[in-house]
């Protein structure tokens, strides 16, 4: 049974696209067939983070409007053969998306894949509401700071009222993914702690992704962090999150960097 997941946050810049790519790749690494859809029409980024920007021919808007067929727009990942991308259009805007069109595309994808990950744009407007519209489950990406947490609270309210499931009287299962977490700063009180965030949002925790240079490096080379640096702390956090998504009981920890002697020597030389 295919599952439709929306990766959303309300606030921009918290790591929705990075997380979509990392989670999608981690699911594919576990043998699942996965498609990631970029809903950020006009400001597409997922293709860059996935390293597929030079292979985009048709996009989501073309498929929604019937200009192209779904198999023409889907791009297969070069590293993982069961990971696919449905890119957004950069030349159009969110008004080009229609509710019926998105419903049709998602219904079509459900017959072909195990997991459909929708990368939501920031904000609470048309793009974001359409990305969550047909979701079965939601991953809310939050940074440990007050503005991000409040925006997530708003998005959770919308997931409970504006989705097709909510309108049918069903629930959208929600998972909280805390990204850019710095245990040191949280301990010094410079950041909200995980307990604070959970107390405010009252939503089950899916994972804690530590702040790391590896994430930025992976985005810059166009490779999801779970592929680019599989043993890094953020990659392990995303992999644990995916195992929890698949129903495994994995102990909740904040993965830390494994610093070897060579690492430290190299870092010193680089500085």
């Amino acid at each position: 049974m295919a599952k439709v997941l929306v990766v959303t946050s309300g606030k921009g810049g918290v790591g929705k696209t990075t997380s979509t790519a990392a989670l999608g790749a981690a699911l594919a690494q576990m043998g699942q067939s996965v498609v990631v859809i970029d809903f950020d029409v006009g400001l597409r980024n997922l293709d860059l983070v996935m390293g597929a920007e030079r292979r985009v021919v048709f996009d989501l808007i073309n498929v929604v409007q019937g200009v192209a067929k779904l198999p023409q727009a889907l791009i297969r990942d070069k590293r993982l053969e069961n990971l696919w991308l449905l890119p957004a259009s950069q030349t159009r805007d969110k008004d080009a998306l229609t509710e019926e069109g998105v419903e049709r595309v998602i219904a079509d994808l459900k017959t072909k894949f195990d997991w459909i990950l929708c990368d939501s744009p920031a904000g609470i407007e048309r793009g974001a509401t359409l990305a969550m519209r047909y979701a079965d489950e939601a991953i809310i990406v939050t940074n440990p700071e007050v503005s991000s947490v409040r925006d997530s609270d708003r998005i959770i309210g919308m997931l409970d009222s504006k989705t097709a499931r909510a309108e049918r009287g069903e629930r959208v299962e929600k998972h909280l993914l805390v990204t850019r977490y710095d245990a040191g700063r949280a301990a010094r009180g410079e950041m909200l702690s995980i307990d604070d965030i959970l107390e405010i949002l009252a939503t089950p925790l899916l994972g804690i992704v530590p702040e790391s240079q590896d994430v930025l490096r992976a985005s810059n080379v166009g490779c999801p962090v779970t592929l680019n640096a599989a043993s890094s702390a953020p990659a392990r956090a995303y992999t644990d999150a995916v195992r929890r998504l698949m129903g495994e009981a994995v102990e909740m920890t904040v993965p830390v960097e494994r610093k070897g002697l060579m690492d430290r020597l190299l870092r010193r030389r680089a500085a």
Partner: protein
Amino acid sequence: MDATQQVARQQVRMRGRSYVAFVFSPVVPVVSWLAEIDATLGKSPGFFTGKPVVLDLAAVDLSQAAIAHLVGSLAERNIRILGIEGVDESRLGANMPPLLTGGRACAITHVEPQKPQPQEKNKDKDKTKLPSLLLESPVRSGQSIVFAEGDVTVLGSVGSGAEIVAGGSIHVYGTLRGRAMAGINGNSAARIFCQKIEAELLAIDGYYQTADDIGDSLRNRPAQAWLEGEMLRITPLN
């Protein structure tokens, strides 16, 4: 009592108040509809004088000039229009009564039978409404819960940027981080209770305090707010 908040300065009061208005629903031809009004006025002159009257134009398609003429014709009969319903805002000129929305039908006492009757089909539904509202899930940022009929009870928390508006008291069994406005219809006996107070704004019957006015000694603990005369007081609950 040192934890009690007393605000001595002059406060702006915001209050809600509802009135029963007559709704006129003109039908075409408007001339004969006006004749009906004249017939009613003939039987009881001055019946509409000083009464709030709303014009519902949903059943007719009138131009801006025609609406202006109709409002003028009613004014000649000493009927002043409070607001207009069921028409696009663009059809209303600057000197016309404002557009009204969200009206609810209700019974009017002492109305003669030939007067345009408001639809009374919602009357029974209103009666069966419960005097209190129970919310079992948290109220999220951006949500606004308005329940003018009575008390609101929230089992979870009220998020920062959320809003609860109640005719009666407000009970929050989680943390109150948003706004709570109790007793909006002039009920000064209404109170606000919460398990943990971090509110952005508390108001009872129009008297309010913002987060800045609420002392730090009260924060993060169970508290209640009530009105003592014209003073909004907040005290810890334990």
